[in-house]
Each structure stands twice: as structure tokens, then as C-alpha cells.
């Protein structure tokens, strides 16, 4: 029986969608429905849910990326394009940023914002599945996936693909919700995620279920060490991670030798 890292039975085609077990084939469609629903209010909800902290988390990723002129960057699960915009300003006309997402509604929002900032000549928009990247080997200097890996069906496969398209000497950054490092914080976080968050979703976005899924999917995501090992297994020569906000969010950085 083939198992993924969290014990989901790939062979019997069952995986998790939040706390529900669903068939492997259905997961992608269910995730798409969630993001079709939240796309219009995504940034507002991010601000409300994180009290604006998501801007600092993303800023930290941009700082860590240390991008220079002419770089090629892949922003996977880029959605509404926050990271893409920051990178596009740095790479200049000689560089390129690919804003990629599996969800067309999120991508449309991202494209609108990129166009509004006048960065369209540096940004390519691409709808794709992270498990099968349509790029050649050793192509990108940097790669980011911000709050998207937990929605990928086969995370190990996606990490392998990310490693494949990275240039030697480049690195990937995975910004994702993770496990709080202290028990009191974990308790507060659980209370916030399962009681308050869906209510905010119900009031602001008129969609309690999608925000409940978001909270549940965070709990099913691998913890810091597990994700580090997955990235090493995907081929990264070295991996480090940085806990932010007490481990509620972590940034993993994996290098390609």
C-alpha cells in the first residue's frame, strides 16, 4: 500500500480535504471550489485573519530571496500576486517572474493587480498544477510558494518538480502555516482558527465552510521538521526553516546544489 507522508493511502485513492477523507481525484476540484469562492475577498480576508501580519510574513520572504536584476523567479500558488509584484520590481526588464496558480479566478485577480502596477512586461501568467511544472530543468533562480503547498494534493511530487526546475545554486522558499512552538500559543491558535475564523468568513465573505476548510487544512499540513525532510527527499542539498510568529507560520528554504 503506497502512503504519503501524513499516512494518506494513495493506493486506495483517499486523501484529506481538511478533516474529511475524500478520494484522490476529488480533492483538486474541492480545493478549486474553495478558491473560486474566496478569490474576490482574498486579500481582505488575509488582512482580517492575520491582523495584517501576512504582509510582514511575505516581506520576510522577499527579503530572504535577495533577488537581483535579471533573475528568473517562479511564484507558485501566487494567487493575487503579492510576492510576484515585489519580485517584478526587483528583477527589472531583464528578468522574469512567472505568476502561477491552478485556480483561474485567483490568477485573474493577480493579473489585474500586476497590470495595474505596470509590471505586465516582466510577468508571465500561467495556470498550472504544481505536481507537473511545464518548465525545463534548471530554469529558475528562485522559487516561492506562499500559503499554497498545503492545498497541493501530492506534496512530495510537487516538491520534486520544484527542485527539478530550480537552477543549481538557486533556492526555493515555502511560506506556509505550521505548528506553533508552544502549547499555550497552540491552544489560542486553535480557538481562533476553529471558532473565530469561520465566523469572520461567514460575515465578510458569506462563506463559513471555505474558511473552516482553510483552518482544517493548516492542521493537516506537515510540521516544520517533516516538511524539511520532505524537501531533502525531493533533492534539496540543504534545507533550513525559520519560524515566524511563534511557529504559526514557517518559511522553509531549500537549496539546489
Amino acid at each position, binding site marked *: 500500500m503506497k502512503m504519503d507522508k501524513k499516512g494518506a493511502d494513495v493506493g486506495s485513492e483517499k486523501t484529506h480535504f481538511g478533516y474529511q477523507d475524500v478520494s484522490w481525484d476529488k480533492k483538486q476540484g474541492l480545493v478549486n471550489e474553495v478558491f473560486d469562492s474566496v478569490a474576490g475577498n482574498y486579500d481582505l480576508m488575509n488582512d482580517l485573519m492575520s491582523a495584517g501580519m501576512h504582509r510582514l510574513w511575505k516581506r*520576510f520572504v522577499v*527579503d530572504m530571496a*535577495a533577488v537581483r536584476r535579471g533573475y528568473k523567479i517562479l511564484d507558485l500558488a501566487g494567487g493575487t500576486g503579492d510576492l510576484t509584484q515585489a519580485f517584478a520590481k526587483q528583477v527589472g526588464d531583464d528578468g522574469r517572474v512567472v505568476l502561477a496558480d491552478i485556480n483561474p479566478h485567483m490568477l485573474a485577480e493577480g493579473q489585474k493587480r500586476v497590470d495595474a502596477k505596470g509590471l505586465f512586461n516582466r510577468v508571465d501568467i500561467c495556470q498550472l498544477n504544481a505536481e507537473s511544472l511545464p518548465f525545463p530543468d534548471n530554469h529558475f533562480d528562485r522559487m516561492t510558494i506562499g500559503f499554497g503547498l498545503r492545498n497541493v494534493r501530492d506534496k512530495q511530487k510537487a516538491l520534486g518538480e520544484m527542485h527539478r526546475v530550480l537552477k543549481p545554486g538557486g533556492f526555493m522558499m515555502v511560506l506556509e502555516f505550521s505548528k506553533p512552538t508552544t502549547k499555550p500559543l497552540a491552544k489560542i491558535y486553535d480557538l481562533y482558527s476553529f471558532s473565530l475564523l469561520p465566523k469572520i468568513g461567514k460575515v465578510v465573505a458569506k462563506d463559513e465552510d471555505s474558511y473552516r476548510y482553510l483552518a482544517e487544512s493548516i492542521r493537516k499540513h506537515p510540521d516544520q521538521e517533516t516538511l524539511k525532510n520532505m524537501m531533502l527527499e525531493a533533492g534539496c542539498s540543504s534545507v533550513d526553516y525559520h519560524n515566524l510568529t511563534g511557529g504559526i507560520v514557517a518559511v522553509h528554504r531549500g537549496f539546489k546544489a
Partner: protein
Amino acid sequence: MRLLKAAIGMMLEGIINPVLRLDPELKYLLEPLIDQRLAVVIHTSPKSHPKTATSSPNCHPRASEARAGDLLRLVFCAEEGRLRISANDYADADVELSGTLVDLLRLAFSENPQPILAQKSVSLVGNTNVLQGYQKLMQQLDLDWEGHLSAIIGPIAAHEIGELARKAKSFHKSSSQETCQDITEYLQEEARLIPPREEVEDFYQDIAQLQQDVERFEAKFKA
């Protein structure tokens, strides 16, 4: 700490970039500096024998070499029409300046930075051309305060305030010069603690004349 540094970078950008944008030529001033990184490391205390200055374009101060006593490392990088400021230590820089806050501010506002660098209270590693580029930017910036103010309070009021500010600046400059002159005259003419330039020159001329007379006498005597 990482998030605090991220916040510091964002806050500094939020303060500095709107001020820089008061110069309508900013985009062109920044063009030669695009993608060139200047790191400024603020120490808590003066360092004795900091790193030797180099001017090699291939010498990049490594971000990972943080030292004990480093309070903050800021990396400035010109982008189109703005400065990007990062307080997280991941960006390598083309040139790195380090010193205490007071010494760095003295350097930033000094018209002639060479004496300050020579004192070694501020250390410099990396490509000095990049540093000169940023200095040139500071010197060439011409912030149109009056134009910006006029959008808020109207052109006539903004012009009056601008005139007041220009008069105050001119008064400060001339009174500083006069004060220096007065102090010099007091020390030279009244307290006689230091001789005036003309007296010193006369004295040296007298010595030179005496030396010539002695040499002539010596020549006659030997003859």
C-alpha cells in the same frame, strides 16, 4: 526579531520614499544606482581597527558575517523611482559602511567625507564607486518641498513659508560664518592667543632673510 526587521524595512521605506519623491528628477537620479546595494551597519560602540577598506568591484561584503555589537544592518537598493530598504540580513551588498550612528550621520551630511573615512571611525568594505554613487544622489537631490506643500495649503501660503525657510537658512549660514570670523579675530587680535596669518608670514620671511644673510656672511668669511 525577523518580523521586527521586516517591519523596520517597510517603515523606513514608507518614510523615506515619499520624501525622495518630492524631487521630480528622482527616477533619473536613481537610474545609475539600480540594483546596486549599499549596506549600512550601525554599531552600538566604536570599533578600533575595523576592516581595511578596499575598492575592488569583486569584493562583496557577505551578509552572513554579522558581528557582535552590530545593532542593525540596513541594505539600501535603488529600484525604479524608489529605494528598497531591507533590515533582514540576507542580501549581499556591493559596499558596506559600518560605524556608530553618530559617525554615520556625520558622514552622510558631510560635504567632504574623506577626513571622516581617514579617521577610521567609519569602516568601508567593497566597491567605493557604489558609495560615491549614493553620495552623489544625496548631493543632487533637490526636494520640491514648496510644490508638495502647495498641494496641501495652497501655492501662496506655500511660497510664503518657502521664503521664510530660505531666509532662515541664509541667516543661519551667514551668522555661522560671521561667528567663526568673530572668534578668529578675537583669538588673533584681542586675546593674542594665536598670531594672525600675516604676522606668521612676516615672521617666516624674516627667518628666510636671516638665513640668507648668514649664508652670505659664511661665504664671505670663508673667502
